[in-house]
């Protein structure tokens, strides 16, 4: 394990303005990704995960009114770079894949063309050379008949195949970081497995780091090295996978893990968390989780708990980390 850091996000805050209201989507997060690491960013809807991922590549929509903090990629602060330099990075050093590949592929361009674009633009390949490379890539991502696939249109592929095309597009220039925003949500189980395995293979063979955004703890348990959990625009716990699952510290994490149904829990009541996930527009003061937290004290309503290191590699943002929750009735 090297000490060089691939991506370091420090105190990132992103605020939007919509209908004259300020919406703090991300409220000061720290996140570190090492080279070749599979880092899962977990959170429920509205937690700010997608906004975080778009911030890295600076692909946020125009109604962003505030973007603060630093995102250091190989020691260069991405937020300070010019748009031109960013364009060089996008698709080459840092790539992204998305949920619902049908929407994220141009319906009137052939699959091969869309993959070739990156290669030709970033690496200056000729059309012939690019085509060969696309063929290799398609094989690598497991598309059968790569030669034929190149000339097909997106709608001719199944969902799983479309996602493979997107992955081919993203890895075409050998990025050192791949951002994956819920790429397997709404896919069938079998296809999910294949895509996850594909990503893990690529991670291993190309030493590519993956920032994997999801709400699915099963995928995270299987594939991740490090997990960061987001709630209401803040990271409330971060740890290597084994540590997180054996000794979760934040009450939200613990309750979340207890909410997942399983065969073993038959006949018992599920844990669940009362209340609702807060909208970015109405975040409670102090610790955003306090209205739903069984451990909440006065302190939690007034102060925001900082993300602190509890033990090696394990950070938690809570005033009472690891304290026993009331047991299940």
């Amino acid at each position, binding site marked *: 394990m090297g000490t060089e850091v691939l991506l370091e996000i420090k105190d990132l805050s992103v605020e939007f303005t919509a209908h004259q209201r300020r919406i703090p989507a991300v409220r000061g997060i720290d996140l570190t990704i090492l080279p070749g690491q599979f880092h899962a960013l977990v959170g429920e*809807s509205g937690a700010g995960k997608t906004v975080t991922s778009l911030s890295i590549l600076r692909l946020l929509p125009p109604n962003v009114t505030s973007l603060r903090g630093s995102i250091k990629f190989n020691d260069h602060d991405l937020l300070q770079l010019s748009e031109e330099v960013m364009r060089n990075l996008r698709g080459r050093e840092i790539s992204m894949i998305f949920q619902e590949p049908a929407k994220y592929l141009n319906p009137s361009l052939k699959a091969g063309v869309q993959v070739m674009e990156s290669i030709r633009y970033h690496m200056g390949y000729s059309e012939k050379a690019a085509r060969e490379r696309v063929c290799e890539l398609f094989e690598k991502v497991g598309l059968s008949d790569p030669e034929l696939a190149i000339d097909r249109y997106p709608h001719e592929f199944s969902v799983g195949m479309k996602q493979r095309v997107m992955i081919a597009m993203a890895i075409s220039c050998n990025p050192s970081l791949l951002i994956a925003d819920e790429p397997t949500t709404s896919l069938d*189980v079998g296809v999910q497995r294949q895509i996850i395995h594909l990503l893990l293979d690529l991670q291993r063979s190309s030493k590519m780091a993956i920032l994997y955004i999801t709400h699915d703890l099963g995928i995270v348990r299987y594939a991740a090295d490090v997990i960061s959990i987001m709630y209401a625009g803040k990271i409330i716990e971060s740890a290597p996978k084994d540590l997180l699952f054996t000794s979760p510290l934040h009450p939200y994490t613990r309750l979340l893990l207890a*909410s997942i*149904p*399983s065969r073993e829990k*038959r006949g018992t009541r599920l844990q*669940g*968390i009362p209340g609702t*996930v807060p909208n970015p527009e109405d975040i409670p003061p102090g610790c955003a989780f306090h209205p739903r937290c069984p451990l909440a004290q006065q302190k939690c309503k007034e102060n925001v708990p900082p993300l602190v290191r509890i033990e090696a590699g394990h950070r938690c943002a809570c005033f009472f980390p690891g304290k026993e929750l009331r047991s299940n009735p």
Partner: protein
Amino acid sequence: MKPLLRVENLTKIYPGSGIIKRYPVKALDNISFTVEEGDIFGLVGESGSGKTTLARCILFLEPPTSGKVYYGNLCLNDVAWYQWKKLRSRMQIIFQDPNSALNPRLPIRRSLEEGLINLGYSRKQRNDTIRKLLDQVGIPYNQVDWYPYEFSGGQKQRIIIARALSMNPKFIVLDEPVSNLDVSIQAGIINLLMDLKKEFNLTYIFISHDLDLIAYLSTKIGVLKGGQLVEVGKAEEVLTHPLHPYTRFLLENPLSFHSRIQPWETLSKETI
């Protein structure tokens, strides 16, 4: 004892469309199963397996192409159109998307009242019933005149459950009722459904793609693949001794949170 619901050789074929000959789609292929009173029949299937079609056909929201559905002694195929009104209140359905199931232009009181008005309740009776229902599903009564957009997804689903309950159903078909909700909210809804089942002696047909969920709450499990019921049986049986390879495939999913399969790094040393 006669089962509450009996489905016999249910088949649904959608005709092809278009000028050029298109092949008809067999959404359901010879499905048969029974549901006893008090069962939770968990139907697990992925997209395209026909689960929503099955849900609709059981309740005759769509007529099957062939096959019969029996509710107690009554054969639903033989029910005349004017008899359905009374029958419908006995069988309710809850869908996946809470947003499209509630009329966004009506305050929830109106949505909850509709069925009761149809059954001939007076205003006082309606108010009392609604108050009780909202209490049961955990929505404060003082929000009864709010509009759907003012509620969260989980709350909307609770309101929809209340609406279904208002009809005093015997059984409820639930088509992916929690799939659109966050994990932390899902548990609350599931607990609610289990409580209501006990209190009102309901029977559920619970459809989901999430095998963990089905494994958690079903008394009986059916596995749907490509329109066919490839396996059906008591939950414990199916979970411990799955017969069909597809069932085994679903059960051995390494991406399930509680899977006994080791995570990736331990596997990466061997072949996948």
